[in-house]
C-alpha cells in the first residue's frame, strides 16, 4: 500500500526570462513505513517538489499532475481540508530550524499550538503533550526547556524541536528537507539516529544532497537532475549497481570514492539542453542523446533509469 503517489507532476514558474521547469513530469510512490530518499544537487528542484506536495508554493507557480494521498488528489482538495492535511497527515521538517521557529514564542507553546490546532485539545493538555514530544526527541529536562525560547537552544536541539513539532500530530507521512544541514558531524550523527528511531513506523520522504545521510536512512533512493528523476531503485542497487551516468558521476565525485568530478555544471532550469538533459556532461553521450529525450524505463524489477544506454 502506498502512502503517497505522485503522478506526472509538473511545477513550473513563469518568469520574465522564461519558464523555470523546477519539477518536470515526476512520477513516484512512497510506500507505507518506507523512507524514500530524493537526492540531488542545488537547483535540481527537489525542494520545490516537497513544497508542491504540501501546496506551499507561491501563487505564481503552475502545477499539473496528481498527488494522491488517502484516495484523493491533494492538488484538488480545498484550502480548509489542505490545512488539515498539513500536520495531521503530512508533516514537514524544514532545513534551517533557526528561522523556522518563532523567536519570541516559547518552544513548548509552539509545539502546543500545532497540537491545539489539529487535535482540539485544551491548552493544558496540549502543553503536556508538547512536553511529551520534547521527551520523545530526547531533549533533557523537557518540562523546563519547554518554557525556554528558541535562542536558548543550540542548532542540534532546535532541530530536535522541529522534529518534535513534525511528529506532534502523529502524521502518516513526513517530508524532511535536508534535516541535518549545517549541523556538526557529531550532532548530525545524533539527529540521524533520532530520525531513524522516530520514523520507524512512518513513511518519510527525505530530501537531501547528501548521499551519506540517504544511505543511513533510506530504503529506496531517487536521483533528481535538472527537474526530473533520472534513476530510482533500492538503496543497495543505487550504491552497488548504479546505471545512470549521473548517478555514477555523483558517486564518483564523493571524497571517499576517488573525488572524480563530473565535468561542466548543472543547467539552468530555464534553459534546459535538448534531448537528454545530462548529455552535455555525459561521457557516453551519442547522437540519440542529443536529439531525443529519454523516457524512464524499468531495467529490472523496481529499478528505473532514464538513459538510452542503460542496458548496454
Amino acid at each position, binding site marked *: 500500500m502506498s502512502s503517497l503517489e505522485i503522478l506526472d507532476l509538473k511545477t513550473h*514558474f513563469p*518568469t520574465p*526570462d522564461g519558464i*523555470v521547469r523546477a519539477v518536470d513530469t515526476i512520477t513516484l510512490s512512497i510506500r507505507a513505513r518506507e523512507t524514500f530518499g530524493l537526492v540531488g544537487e542545488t537547483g535540481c528542484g527537489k525542494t520545490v517538489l516537497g513544497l508542491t506536495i504540501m501546496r506551499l508554493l507561491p501563487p505564481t507557480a503552475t502545477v499539473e499532475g496528481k498527488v494522491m494521498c488517502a484516495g484523493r488528489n491533494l492538488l484538488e482538495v480545498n484550502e480548509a481540508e489542505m490545512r488539515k492535511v498539513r500536520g495531521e497527515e503530512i508533516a514537514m521538517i524544514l532545513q534551517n530550524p533557526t528561522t523556522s521557529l518563532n523567536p519570541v514564542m516559547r518552544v513548548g507553546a509552539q509545539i502546543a499550538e500545532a497540537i491545539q490546532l489539529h487535535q482540539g485539545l485544551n491548552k493544558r493538555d496540549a502543553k503536556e503533550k508538547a512536553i511529551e514530544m520534547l521527551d520523545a526527541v530526547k531533549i533533557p529536562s523537557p518540562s523546563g526547556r519547554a518554557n525556554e525560547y528558541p535562542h536558548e537552544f543550540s542548532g542540534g536541539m532546535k532541530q530536535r524541536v522541529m522534529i518534535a513539532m513534525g511528529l506532534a500530530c502523529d502524521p502518516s507521512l513526513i517530508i524532511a528537507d535536508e534535516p541535518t544541514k549545517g549541523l556538526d558531524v557529531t550532532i548530525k550523527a545524533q539527529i540521524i539516529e533520532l530520525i531513524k528511531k522516530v520514523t520507524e513506523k512512518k513513511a518519510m520522504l527525505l530530501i537531501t544532497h547528501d548521499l551519506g545521510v540517504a544511505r543511513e536512512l533510506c530504503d529506496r533512493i531517487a536521483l533528481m537532475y535538472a527537474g526530473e528523476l533520472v534513476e530510482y531503485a533500492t538503496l543497495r542497487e543505487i550504491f552497488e549497481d548504479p546505471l545512470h551516468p549521473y548517478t555514477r558521476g555523483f558517486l564518483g565525485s564523493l571524497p571517499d570514492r576517488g573525488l572524480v568530478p563530473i565535468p561542466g555544471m548543472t543547467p*539552468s532550469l*530555464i534553459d534546459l539542453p535538448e534531448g537528454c538533459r545530462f548529455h552535455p556532461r555525459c561521457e557516453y553521450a551519442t547522437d540519440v542523446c542529443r536529439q531525443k529525450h529519454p523516457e524512464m524505463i524499468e531495467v529490472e524489477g523496481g529499478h528505473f533509469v532514464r538513459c538510452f544506454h542503460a542496458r548496454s
Partner: protein
Amino acid sequence: MKRHDKHNSRVMGAVARVRESRSAMLGLTIIVLLVLMAIFAPHLSPNDPTDVRLGDRLISPFTESKYPLGTDHLGRCVLSRLLYGARISLAVGITVVGISTVIGVTLGVVSGYYGGISDSVIMRFVDATLSLPSIFLAVVIAGMLGRGLASVMIALVAIEWTSYARVTRGSVLSLKEKEFVESARSLGARDSYIMARHILPNIIAPVIVVATIGMAYVILAAAALSFLGFGAQPPTPEWGAMLNAGRVYMRTAPYLTILPGFAIMLLVIAFNLLGDGLRDILDPRRVVVE
C-alpha cells in the same frame, strides 16, 4: 547562457525594474514634469513673477486669461510665481541634499571603517542632532544666521547630513565583515583604496534611497522655514513664503494658500513615492527568480 546577455549590467536591470514599480514610476513622472516646468519657467510664465500691479489685485483663478491662476494681494501672477517657485524649491533641495550626502557619506565611511574614537565622536554628534526635533533645530540655526535662503540651506545641511552618516556607517559596518573586503586587505591594499573601490560602490544603493526621501523632507522644511519668515524674502516667489503671504486672505482668496500648498504637497509626495519604490528595487535581498 542566453539569460546572462539579457541583463548585462545591474544598472540596466534597475532601470527596467523602475518601470515595473508603479509608484516609483508615478513619482518619477511628477518629478520630471516639475523639473521641466522649473527649467522652462521663463518661457512658460505668462507674466513676470515679481511684477506688482495694484490695479489687478486678488483676481480669482480661471476668470481672466491674462492670469490663468489669478493674482495675489499685490496683483502678481500666481501661476508665474508657482513656476518660478519650483526652481527655488528644487534648487534648495538639490543643493542641501548634495552637500549633506558628501559630508554624511564621508564621515559615515570613516566612522564605520575605522571605528574607535572617530566613530564615537561622529556618532555621538549624530545622535545628539537626531534626538532633537529637527525643525526646531533648523529654526534655531537659521535664526542665528539671519534671514535669507542661504542660512536656511546651511541650517538644513547641518541637520540633514546626520541621516546619511548613520545609513552609511551601518552599511559600512556590514560590508567590512564581508570576505571580499578582507581579501582586499590580505592582498595588501591601502585603506583609502579599499574605501574607494570596494566600500563606496556598494553603499550607493541605500544612500540613493535616503537621498530621495531626504529631498522630500528638505523641500518641505525649506518651505516651512520660509513660511515662518526665515528663508526666502519678498519678493522672491518661494512656495512657503507664498503660503505665508496668502494666509491673511484665507477667507476671501483661499486659492492663495491652496495652490502653493498643493504644489509643495505634490513635490513632496512625488519624492516619497520614488524613494519608497527605489527602496524596494535596490533592496539586495530582492532576488530575481532564475
